[in-house]
Each structure stands twice: as C-alpha cells, then as structure tokens.
C-alpha cells in the first residue's frame, strides 16, 4: 500500500489569498476546505492537489474575525465556505454565492461551533 506524504503549512490569514493564488497559478485543483475547533480557536484547512501531490495550508482564527473568501480564485469554494459558515459560524468576506445561512439548514444554529460533549462525560442530549 502506498501512503501519501502530506505536509501542512500554517500561514497567517493575511497571506491567505496570495498563497491560494500561488496554488492556482501552479495549476492545482482545490480538493477541499474544512474547519476544526481546537480549544477556543478554529483551524481552517485548504487542501490542493496536482498530479496526485497533496498540499495543505492552514490558518488559525478566533472564529469572530472575518476571513477573506477564496471563491474569487476558486469559483467552487463557495460550497465549502457556506458549509463552514452554517456549521461553525465562520464568516467569509466576498463569497461569490452567499446562501446567508441557508445551504445546510440545521435545527441548532452553528452546531459544530460549540461541541457539547466529548469522550467520557455524560451526553447532555441523553
């Protein structure tokens, strides 16, 4: 079995658009974007691929600061940005298609922003 070597580079949100533009110029495709809540911060990952070479960049944010949208560089990024907005409450500035919180309709607003239960503690929903 071949396992991919992967590297994640952490960058400042200020440098995000420039870095993403570099990937586009190299001919990379956008594989995915996603968010992970770690403590009080949010990690946002941007993954790219060219000829099966996988690269990942990461920004770390407090969840309140607006993040520049990359949908002007990768048009299809709107689906991931709207998803992160609806599930984590992350705000993106300049999305090409903004569903205003209506892409994924959930009973609880931003359900992934505050995971209520982990591991051995009792489940509050039970």
């Amino acid at each position, binding site marked *: 079995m*071949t396992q991919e070597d*992967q590297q994640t580079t952490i960058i400042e949100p200020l440098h995000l658009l420039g870095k993403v533009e570099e990937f586009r110029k190299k001919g990379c495709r956008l594989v995915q974007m996603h968010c992970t809540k770690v403590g009080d911060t949010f990690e946002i990952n941007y993954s790219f691929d060219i000829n099966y070479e996988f690269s990942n960049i990461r920004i770390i944010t407090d969840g309140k600061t607006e993040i520049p949208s990359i949908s002007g560089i990768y*048009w299809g990024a709107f*689906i991931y940005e709207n998803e992160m907005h609806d599930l984590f409450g992350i705000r993106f500035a300049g999305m090409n298609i903004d569903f205003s919180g*209506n892409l994924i309709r*959930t009973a609880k607003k931003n359900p992934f922003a505050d995971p209520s*239960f982990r591991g051995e503690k009792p489940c509050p929903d039970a």
Partner: protein
Amino acid sequence: MPRRIVVPFGPQHPVLPEPIHLDLVLKDEHVEEALPSIGYIHRGLETLVTKREYPEYVYIAERTCGICSFIHGMTYCQAVEKLVDCTVPERALFLRTIWSEYSRLHSHLLWLGLFADALGFENLFMASWRLRESVLDVLEETTGGRVIQGSCKVGGVRKDISGETLERMRKGLDIIERDAGEIADVFLRDDSIVSRTRGIGVLSREDAYALGAVGPTARASGVGIDLRKTGYAAYDKLSFSPVVETAGDCHARCAVRVKELFTSIDLIRQAIAKIPDGPIEEKPKKNPEGDYFARSEQPRGELVHYVKGDGSRHLVRSRIRTPTLTNLPSLVRMLKGCNLADVPVIVLSIDPCIGCAER
C-alpha cells in the same frame, strides 16, 4: 418578451432518490441560474467521532452512505492507521480492494438502473438492478451484509475469503461481465438514450478542473483523475487505466460508468489472482495522535477522510469530504443555459448522493 420566473426543483422529485432543492431561475424555458440548497437530511455524523472511541467510529463512517459504505469505512481506517503506526497485512489490503470494486460495481449498476428509469426504460432499469443483485449476493456471502458490510476495521479486515469462494467469485465474474456487456450496448448505442443525453449538460475540461469536479463527472470531461492511481489498498499491485471520455455531456458521464464496470471486473480478477496468504489484521500500537487526510476513489469520485487525534481513544475531529459535495459547483455550471426539460437528466448524471454530501 421573455419572462423570468423561479421554478423550485425538489426536494421531492421522481428522479431524486434523496432530497436536494434547486431554485431554477428561468428565462422562458432556459435555465439562467441554478442555486442548490441541502440540509434536509443533515445527521451531524462528524461530531459523533467525539462521542465514540476511534475503533467504533468505523461503523458510523460506513453509515455515511448506503451505497459506497465499504469505501467510507476503509478510507476512515486508512486515515486512522496512519496515526496509530499500523501496517495493514497484504492479504487484508487485497480483500479491501476486492470489496471496494464490488462496491463500485453495485453503485454503478444502481445508478445505471436509476438513469434508465429516468429516461423511461423500465426493462433496462430491471436488467441493471437484476445484475446488481448478483453483485450484492457476493457481498452478502463474503461479508454478511448486502449494503453495510462491516468487514473493515482499523488494522485490517474482520473476515477472510476462502480459496474456494474466491474461485467461485472468479467464475461468477464471467457471468457478470456477459450480462454487463448486454446492458452496456443499450446504454451506449440506443438512439433514444443518445438523443436524450448527447450534447446535454456539457461541462468543459477547463471548468471540470477549475470547479474541482471528481470521479466520472471529471473523467467524462477529459480530466483523468482517479485516486486509485495513488496506490492505496492493493491498487499499487494491479494495473488499470482510468476510463476517460472527452464530450463532457450526460452521455459521456453514462459511458464512463458503463466502461468502469469492466475495469472493476478486471481489477477483481487481478486481485483474486494475486492475493497472498497471511494474516488479515494487525493490532494498533497506540492511540491516534496527529492528523491525516486519507483519500480514495469512491464510485462517485474522490473521497477524503480527515482525522485529528490527541492521543486519547476519542478523536478530536473527523471531516468527510464526499464527491457529491464537490461536484455541486459543477452541477450549477452544467445547468446554466440548459432547457428546463433536461434538468432531471443533468442532475441525475452527476450521480448525486445527498446522504453522503450532508453527513
């Protein structure tokens, strides 16, 4: 003077097995813009990773989708195995490959049946699903489950397949190949199917790549991305070429899936011929720590399972990026400029799996 109106499409529609809603902005009969919205079956499966220990989450990962369930479980296991320093035995890798390809066969046959039904071909629908039954029978016999197999685990697989059964499967592939050849001929050459699908919902090669299309949706537009070429499971021991078409229309997307039936049959034959003897699992040496993106080729395209662990038995995060989610921007582009009457066929042509996309 043309009138602009908005027509709601879905969430319930005869061609949609699962709910997705599209707002179609029409100018007379032409679609000017299509805006998708989902959220009807969001289950929050990713957050369950924090409530279950990492070996148990395989069952949840499998239930992300009722069609490509095995590949979801396997890809999650691949991600975790990287974090727990686990070397999966060769035989288990071959078994995973065999079950993955049977999953692809049953998924493509399911889609072909639905596509035939949407075009009004009842007999072709029944022929496709009858053939799918023989594939499901093999999955049931070898794993115990027709739809949810439950045969993959972190470190290997739960069940072995005996030499006798492998031989019977190899012989059965001849019958599947013969029957697939009969229905393939109709899908690829029938005048009615060609006239309903050729030149409809065209996605250019440039758009497919730029919009992040994956799987048959990308390969039908000339983008030859097939993650099996990265050599996960036992694919690095098998030889095949991705099926690529160039027209980018609904017929090309159908043709890719039809031809991939034969690629899968060939891969299973190779795997049966080369499968080594040996153990089928290895115990993990530690709890998962760090993060990793595992990628695989589902029937609908590239699947990504991201996991992040902190050394405990509960993962911090599981992220599942399914092919349908990343094919939605391509669908929006395909629908622009099409006729209202062609919308159902175009939507179906990306093989949307909304259960996967919403998780």
